[in-house]
């Protein structure tokens, strides 16, 4: 009696296992070696790239401000000053240079992402205000 019920249980379990596998037709893995290699290499390459940029930090000399691809002004990073960038009437950004850093202190764009940048003082670093098409770039 015990043996028969044991066999029934095993059949039930087997059919349940099979029905779960039937859901995708074959036993497909959700992650394999190629995926892991892909993910890790992407992370590695980008991390190295970022680290290199961080290590090779050259202090900037001038700040180039472009709006819609056109250079609007180029100012020295050494002089503390505030500049109003406003190519069209409704859009403005206030760019402030102080202590060798450049930052955006005020803007009337919708998301104010441009105002969140910190520590922009090295060559190649940028502040971007996408709605206003403004790119501030630190140059040599």
């Amino acid at each position, binding site marked *: 009696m015990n043996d028969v019920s044991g066999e029934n249980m095993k059949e039930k379990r087997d*059919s349940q296992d099979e029905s779960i596998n039937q859901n995708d037709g074959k036993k*497909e893995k959700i992650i394999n070696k190629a*995926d892991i290699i*892909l993910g890790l290499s992407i992370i590695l390459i980008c991390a190295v790239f970022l680290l290199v940029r961080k290590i090779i930090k050259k202090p900037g000399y001038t700040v180039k401000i472009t709006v819609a691809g056109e250079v609007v002004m180029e100012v020295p990073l050494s002089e503390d000053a505030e500049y109003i960038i406003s190519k069209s009437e409704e859009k403005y950004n206030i760019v402030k240079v102080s202590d060798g850093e450049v930052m955006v202190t005020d803007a009337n764009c*919708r998301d104010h*992402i441009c105002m969140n940048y910190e520590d922009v003082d090295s060559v190649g670093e*940028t502040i971007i205000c996408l*709605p206003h*098409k403004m*790119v501030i770039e630190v140059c040599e």
Partner: protein
Amino acid sequence: MVGNEESDNKINNEKQKQDKSTQKPSGNRLVALCGVFTALAMILSYLESLVPVSVAVPGIKLGLANLITIISLKKLGLKPTIVISVSRIVLSGILFSNVAVIGYSLAGAALSILVMLITSKIKIFSITGISICGAIAHNFGQLIVAAIFLENARIFYYMSVLSIAGAVFGCIIGLVAGSIMKNINL
């Protein structure tokens, strides 16, 4: 004798189940599933919008809605996926964030769906890899639109940060999508 009959029935049942699960839904069932998927994608979009990601490009997000895109691509096919994605992006853009995001998201989604379709046909990667490729393609598409809009290519430097996030979150979303598809029968 009894044992043989039982195993025959079992084989027939297995065949039916296999046919059902590999067939793509159609007709009314497809329409209903599209609606459900779109709604789910919008909920995920809303949840994403609660987490602020402050990068230069608006519309850069965690990519939770990609979960729906992947499952839909595998289970429903290309055309329903396009419909679901476009609907979700337009509606979410109007409801949860600003209309400008719609442009970037559409470009990102277009490139993402294309890349995911190609990678799923090549059959090197499993679903996690497809999701990673999709996430990175999505970011790249958005950056392309942003660069055109800004008329400045400097913004592509953000690709390195975005790719790390894309790989990580793409992997997570891929694993979740794979687990869902394994355990839930449409």
